[in-house]
């Protein structure tokens, strides 16, 4: 029954998919800085940690990282809902209250980051950051559970028939527990990279960052491997898909990034780790397609391109990059004169 005429794509699927993958990668990079950086700062063993200037700089950067994470998170959510809206809306409605609370928990965490960044009492920094991290963990758990649930329509149908109040939670932890752990460990690894970058001239900070980067990567790889094992019936198709190539490239680049990071060659290391995040996003996309195979095929959606407005978007996208570049240049170059 065709109840509404909305099921069309306003651009070819590949454009929307590409935009989703690119923007989600950018979101993950910012999120890794934020989440992983917070974890590393809290767990790192550095004498007089909160008085350390590199740590203080990083703490000051966290609210901006939060703003960047939120901003960069809007676009991938938009593009993924465009193509997989039916599944994502359905899964989020089933866990409606948890889903809605994300925004409010994020506000809470955001303000705590500012509190941590503004406070003059160094001891409180850790408390604010830890409370903020609790919020981030909540958000990550809900995201992982809802986005995994969206890949199992039969499961959200079953959950909904038992509970319509939006309080049903994806209890099939087997399908998303390792996925969540993988992304949390991955974020901690990349967070350590950023901590190392900020504290590159501080031996204590850089040593801790190396430790977290190395062991975080090992743990991420192990959990990623276990997560792959939980794919069950999708394992074999996955091994034959582009996903396995993305995983392989990601692994190699991660190891390369580790090598260059230890040598403090941040440009190479950063490019490699960012591309490995891109590979992870591609893998994630492939897994979604495999799980939905036979249930939903986005290539069957009719395409009715809105080229005129799409080109305006492209122009505004390029303008955005140019203006962001210009503003950052102003900010970092023009420090010659006090503004007040």
């Amino acid at each position, binding site marked *: *029954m065709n109840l*509404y005429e*909305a099921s069309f794509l306003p651009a070819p699927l590949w454009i929307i998919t590409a935009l989703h993958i690119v923007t989600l990668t950018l979101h993950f990079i910012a999120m890794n800085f934020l989440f992983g950086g917070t974890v590393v700062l809290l767990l790192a063993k550095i004498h007089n940690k909160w008085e350390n200037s590199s740590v203080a700089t990083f703490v000051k950067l966290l609210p901006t990282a939060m703003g960047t994470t939120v901003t960069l998170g809007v676009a991938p959510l938009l593009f993924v809902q*465009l193509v997989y809206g039916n599944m994502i809306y359905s899964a989020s409605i089933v866990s409606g209250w948890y889903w809605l609370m994300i*925004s409010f928990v994020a506000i809470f965490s955001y*303000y705590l980051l500012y509190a941590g960044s503004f406070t003059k009492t160094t001891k409180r920094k850790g408390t604010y950051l830890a409370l903020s991290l609790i919020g981030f963990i909540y958000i990550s758990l809900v995201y992982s559970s809802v986005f995994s649930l969206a890949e199992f329509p039969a499961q959200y149908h079953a959950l*909904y028939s038992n509970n319509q109040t*939006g309080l049903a939670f994806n209890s099939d932890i087997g399908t998303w527990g390792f996925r969540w752990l993988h992304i949390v460990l991955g974020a901690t690894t990349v967070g350590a990279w950023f901590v190392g970058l900020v504290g590159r001239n501080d031996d204590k900070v850089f040593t801790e960052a190396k430790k977290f980067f190395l062991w975080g990567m090992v743990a991420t790889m192990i959990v990623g491997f276990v997560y792959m094992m939980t794919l069950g019936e999708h394992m074999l198709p996955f091994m034959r898909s582009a996903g396995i190539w993305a995983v392989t490239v990601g692994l190699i680049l991660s190891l390369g990034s580790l090598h260059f990071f230890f040598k403090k060659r941040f440009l190479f290391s950063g490019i490699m780790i960012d591309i490995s995040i891109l590979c992870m996003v591609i893998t994630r996309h492939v897994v979604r397609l495999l799980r939905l195979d036979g249930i939903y095929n986005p290539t069957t959606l009719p395409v009715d391109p809105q080229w005129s407005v799409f080109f305006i978007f492209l122009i505004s996208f390029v303008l955005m990059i140019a203006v962001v570049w210009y503003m950052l240049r102003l*900010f970092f170059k023009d420090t010659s004169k006090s503004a*007040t």
Partner: protein
Amino acid sequence: MNYPFWDVDIGYGLLMSIIAVVHVFVSHFAIGGGLYLVIVERTARAQGDQLKLDYLKRLSKFFVMTSVVFGALTGVAIWFIIGLLNPAATEVLIHNFVWAWAIEWTFFAVEILAAILYFYSWDRMSPRSHIILGWIYFASAWLSLAVINGIITYMLTPGDWLTTKDFWDGFLNPTYFSSTVLRTGICIMLAGLYASLVAAREKDSLFRIKLIRYNSYWGLIGLLIAMLSYYWFRASIPTEQMSTMLERMVMPWVAQDQLRLFAGVLIGGFIIYGFILTKAYRTTIAILMMTMGLLWFGAFEWFSESSRKPFVIQDYMYANAISVASLEQTQSEGLLSAITFRTGNDGADLFRRACRSCHTIDGYRPVNRAYAGTDIEFIAGMIRGAKAMRANMPPWAGTEQESMMLATHIYEQIDQRHIKDIYDLDGAELGEKVYEIRCGKCHEIGGYNDKTESLVDLTDEDYNDLLDEAGDLAEEMPAFTGDQIERDALIAFFKTLEEGVQK
């Protein structure tokens, strides 16, 4: 119908409006505040006014804390809540306007970064560069509004889009330009209000008075622009839509009355406390003025939202997510067969899909109050005739059999005592209550579809005949199914009526 239904005890309208009003209040300030900061900074620098620059620095901290954090994340909350409350309508919006949203996102990204850099660069950047950042912030924030406004107004007045389905027809719809000017006025007014809240705490009284006066100009000018363009906005609503609003809807006009009232209070407040008793404009007055601003803005949003009732997208999709195009099909083939997510309780599923977006059983806009003391047959008749109701309800989208299932579900949960016992009334007073419940939803005395004239000066036999034949008088009209007590009371009430009014 392709989605689960989020069945929460809180009314959908209430939940949406709480989040939306809070967000728009902050997000509009985020735009006006940007303009205020950059203009005042320019003047302060030209005059070498360090006191003002220090104040602006404090204001920009407050500005970033509210707009970048709270504004941005409540915006995300709106995105989340619309997907939870009406995923079908959200999907229509996202498929038709995704590039508009994507464009808005590029402005939003620039806006957020510009705000952060502006705030952090007071002490490290040349004045010229700092002002450039301020202008970039304001431009991107306003452009963001200009884009989102196309989608918001499309829902009220989709215009030619209904036939062409063309992006630009939907985006540049009949109320787009008036609403853009109106919202720009709101931004300016809110800048004045927020800036006064920060200014009210200034210790130097002369400086504070100077600031409050200046900010009051912002408030007044913004309000003036907003009120004038409100009438332009109202005039841009297509005539047919406006006549339905005038004839059948109460809420937009209540909202309009409130809009005028709060505008009056705000103008008075700006004049009295902004220019005459300026010394008294301290934190308490500032908070009161902010509250008035919030109420004014809420009234406007209420007018705008309630004007499109019973649609979520005017003439395209009803508030209960049933599209106009699919109505005929669901009416003939049944609503249940169109529901993908069934729970095993058909009555409850029908209630969720047909009614629950706007009504609860006993909470927000309760059906209990509407139908307590009545019977299944009457409720089913009212459901089938929903489109004739004064409150401008969507038409019933199911079959006759489904209306009985839904009526049974409602009946099982409402107060089943006799109307007489529920309201503890007798005689004509009871009759008036019976009229209100059984007739008044479609025939308002002295108002919508008034039939008082045909009820005046009839004999008891005429009244009884009229009630016996009620179900045959119009397609949407249910039969009179009340018992003899209700019948006698209703007739007693009819006898109190004079032409057009009650005796």
